[in-house]
């Protein structure tokens, strides 16, 4: 239910906190272990991992997870031994320790109820882990170390052939690649809930709006200053207009006094005004800085989003019998947290692709004169107001000839056309849904799903993907994304007297057209744009609003849609271009038709941001006359009103859904409630013909609910059926005494007793 929202860490249970800690510390451990694998001499990694294991041990003890205590303890011992040079961390030991990290994660996932049985089940595995960690055979393993070191040395010399590398990057690649741990240490990180951040952003935005108000106030004061000046001039004129002889001493004195007072008012006002202006400048400056600082809080270092990747690259490569190294650059690049979250899946996919399709098997590589170890580069940087993320491998590259024939074979185009295509055009085919060049489907990739998903995600984020490939030296994907999702450039327009914002990136063209240039075919209005006929639709009609656009001599038109279908949306007028901070709509609303989100205008009033994809669909529905179906759906609603209504109250989702389906199949309109309190609220809305309730529920149990129902004069005769696991006679009596009409046990789902009882009590669904 919507009520379950986490407001602060105070609401979290100890177990939740432990889980959060496991996530944080296992990242430290994984990064550290992988760092150690690349650079076995790095002692700072050991220190950090020892502390991580130690913290986990303590935390596990608090929540009583003995298995985790033992695993963490053994790992800590191992790191301590390594620190004292009593033990060498070999590649095999790293495998074991990584398995230990996995084990810790699994312990954290187990719920309290199943913990005991889980620990018994997993005991063997835990014992095996502990013994493999303490086994003396592991203490010295120089052989594995050498085999790991060798390709590392070779690979550094073999880096040059990769096409797109810039020369500066090579010394960086040689530096110990433990950037993540370094970055994490240099800047303290706090956990802040998303809600806190959102309200902070709201307040900062409001401060910015409030600061702009002063500007108008200062302008008002300027007017006052002018009026005072006029007053002074009037007084001056008054003295001059009095004939010299008429001016007695008293009047003259008064006049002088009045002029002095007016002058002092002017001075004082001028000073205040200057103060105000300086305050205004400071305040505006301060609030806009505050605002941008808060906006920056939405940014996280790129490193945060790629934590799992080193491990994944290692594991995937190992399972394919390849040696692959992941080189990450630009880990400190700030990326919008929402974008970072959404990019995890596409980046993971591109990396897996690079390892599986791009990087060749070690012997093949050596045969081609490359290093046996493949390298995948993952790089993030800001360029020209965009975020660029590059995934490049030094593998064989895409075989363009094979691609050409695959495209022709799949009848996507003719072989002749394929031959004329440029490399870039040809590579675009890789993004088609279901397209694959791999003959065999592996666990890793080759199913033909993926690249199209990458492209879809990137498009949804308002960016694009570019792919380039060089035969023999690698493939490179570049994702070009906006820096943040929370700020978008929009075109503000007025439709039916209300402002709306449209993402600028989605507007093909905005224009004003003289009325006479609008033509008509079969009653459908259109105009020509670059030798293409664009059909016109009225925006207020699409959005189902009252108030047609003003009948000016010029029509304001927004051209939307893609190459296949373009529509001209007729709006009232253009209000201008503006950068807006996107706010999500209240989740209680669900999806609002044609609207994606909202924002605040500079004057503080809300404005709605149009969901262009949804709007395009609405236009299509409108032009194809499907608004008729809407009338049909209203009939449907009327039909559900006539149906008998049943309320199902049960705290178990499974039972609730089972009962709902059963009764729904019987033709009843069914609503559900998750516990007694929820059920009582629903009953009191007075829409139900029958209530089916469980007995054991949190907050208010079924018997209490039944008592409440029977006590209320309105519901005395409302039929209530209890469905419970409890089937002892005394349970049954308790239910019947409280006023239940039937008492069923949960076994009754299988023989349709429930449906029969319901029909018995209130008749068939539409009687």
């Amino acid at each position, binding site marked *: 239910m*919507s*009520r379950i*929202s986490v*407001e602060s860490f105070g609401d979290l249970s100890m177990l939740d906190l432990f889980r959060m800690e496991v996530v944080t510390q296992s990242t430290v451990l994984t990064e550290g272990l992988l760092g150690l694998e690349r650079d076995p001499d790095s002692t700072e990694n050991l220190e950090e991992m020892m502390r991580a294991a130690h913290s986990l041990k303590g935390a596990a003890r608090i929540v009583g997870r003995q298995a985790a205590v033992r695993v963490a303890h053994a790992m800590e011992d191992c790191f301590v031994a390594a620190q004292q040079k009593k033990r060498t961390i070999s590649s095999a030991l790293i495998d074991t320790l990584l398995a230990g990290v996995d084990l810790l994660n699994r312990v954290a996932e187990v719920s309290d109820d199943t913990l005991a049985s889980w620990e018994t089940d997993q005991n063997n595995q835990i014992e095996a882990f502990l013994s493999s960690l303490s086994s003396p055979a592991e203490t010295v393993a120089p052989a594995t170390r050498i085999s790991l070191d060798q390709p590392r040395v070779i690979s550094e010399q073999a880096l040059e052939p990769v096409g797109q590398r810039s020369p500066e990057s090579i010394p960086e690649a040689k530096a110990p690649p433990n950037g993540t741990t370094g970055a994490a240490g240099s800047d303290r990180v706090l956990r802040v809930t998303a809600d806190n951040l959102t*309200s902070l*952003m*709201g*307040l*900062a*935005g*409001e*401060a910015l*709006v409030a600061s702009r108000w002063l500007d108008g106030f200062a302008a008002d004061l300027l007017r006052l200053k002018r009026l005072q000046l006029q007053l002074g001039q009037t007084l001056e004129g008054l003295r001059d207009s009095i004939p010299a002889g008429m001016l007695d001493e008293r009047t003259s004195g008064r006049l002088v006094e009045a002029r002095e007072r007016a002058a002092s008012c002017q001075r004082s006002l001028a000073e205040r005004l200057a103060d105000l202006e300086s305050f205004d400048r400071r305040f505006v400056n301060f609030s806009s800085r505050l605002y941008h600082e808060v906006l920056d809080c939405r940014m996280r270092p790129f490193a945060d989003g790629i934590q799992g990747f080193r491990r994944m690259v290692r594991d995937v490569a190992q399972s394919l019998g390849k040696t692959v190294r992941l080189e990450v650059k630009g880990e400190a690049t700030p990326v919008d947290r929402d974008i970072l979250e959404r990019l995890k899946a596409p980046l993971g996919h591109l990396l897996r692709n690079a390892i599986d399709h791009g990087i060749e098997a070690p012997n093949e590589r050596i045969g081609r004169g490359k290093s046996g170890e493949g390298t995948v580069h993952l790089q993030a940087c800001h360029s020209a107001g965009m975020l660029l993320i590059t995934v490049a491998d030094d593998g064989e590259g895409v075989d363009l000839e094979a691609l050409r024939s695959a495209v022709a074979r799949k009848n996507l185009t003719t072989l002749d056309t394929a031959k004329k295509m440029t490399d870039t055009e040809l590579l675009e085919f890789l993004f088609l849904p279901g397209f694959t060049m791999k003959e065999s489907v592996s666990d890793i990739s080759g199913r033909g799903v993926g690249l199209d998903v990458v492209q879809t995600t990137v498009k949804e984020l308002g960016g694009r993907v570019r792919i380039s490939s060089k035969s023999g030296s690698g493939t490179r994907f570049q994702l070009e994304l906006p820096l943040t999702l929370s700020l978008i450039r929009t075109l503000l327009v007025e439709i039916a007297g*209300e402002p709306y914002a449209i993402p600028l990136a989605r507007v093909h063209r905005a224009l004003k057209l003289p009325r006479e240039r609008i033509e008509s075919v079969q009653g459908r209005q259109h105009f020509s744009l670059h030798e293409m006929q664009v059909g016109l639709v009225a925006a207020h009609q699409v*959005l*189902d*609003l009252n108030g047609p656009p003003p009948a000016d001599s010029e029509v304001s038109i927004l051209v939307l849609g893609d190459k296949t279908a373009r529509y001209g949306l007729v709006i009232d007028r253009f209000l201008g271009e503006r950068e807006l901070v996107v*706010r999500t*709509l*209240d989740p*209680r*609303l*669900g999806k*609002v*038709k*044609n*609207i994606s989100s*909202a924002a*605040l205008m500079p004057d*503080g*009033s*809300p*404005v*709605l941001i149009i969901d262009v994809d949804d709007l395009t669909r609405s236009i299509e529905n409108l032009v194809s006359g499907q608004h008729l179906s809407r009338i049909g759906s209203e009939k449907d609603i009327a039909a559900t009103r006539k149906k008998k209504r049943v309320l199902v109250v049960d705290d178990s989702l499974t039972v609730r859904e089972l009962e709902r389906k059963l009764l729904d199949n019987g033709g009843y309109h069914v609503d559900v409630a998750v516990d007694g309190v*929820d059920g009582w*609220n*629903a009953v*009191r*809305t*007075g*829409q139900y013909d029958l209530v089916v309730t469980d007995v054991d529920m949190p907050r208010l149990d079924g018997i209490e609910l039944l008592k409440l129902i029977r006590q209320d*004069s*309105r519901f005395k005769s409302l039929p209530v059926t209890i469905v419970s696991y409890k089937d002892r006679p005394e349970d049954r009596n308790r239910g019947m005494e409280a006023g239940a009409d039937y008492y069923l046990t949960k076994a009754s789902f299988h023989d349709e007793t429930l449906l029969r009882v319901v029909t018995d009590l209130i008749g068939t669904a539409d009687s």
Partner: protein
Amino acid sequence: MTENQISAPRLLDREVSEESLRESTAHVAAKKNIVELGTKSVVIFRIATEWLALPTDVVQEISDLCTVRKLPDHRHGILKGLANVRGDLLLCVALEVILGLEKAASGQDISPSTAVRRLMICRRRNARLAFEVSEVHGLHRYHPRELRSAPATLAKAAEGVYTLGVLAWKDKIVGCLDDELLFYSLNKGLA
């Protein structure tokens, strides 16, 4: 002995004046103004011609009216739109619609002035909602025994009963709203 040491006992030993004695006696003898336990606090407000009350703890803020931006989606009968309250975009609902006040009192608003109209912002279980009211009186305390049951015509109605009971306040009758049920229905109505 310093002057203070001499004057202090003199001050304490002085004869108490008749007047001050009377005053103190009256003060001690006065009937104590006992604060009754178990009273409840409500915010009393008006929508059109009806005076209503909601528990004070659900009312988070009362603010001036602001622009309410309509949503172009007609399925929400009770939703008026979005309002900007201190930088938060809140859902603004029509309480008069869910309470069935619109038909009863259309065009009968007793004070056509907009100066007293306010936006009430309520919060229940982390969910916030705003609604427009014609006027807010302020806080009022009452004891549950003062609560009289709603008229049978309302209490017996099958649907849309959101009144717990009525209170006599000044020369008016105030309907105490059932916040639990009201917000349950409002939240349901938004979906």
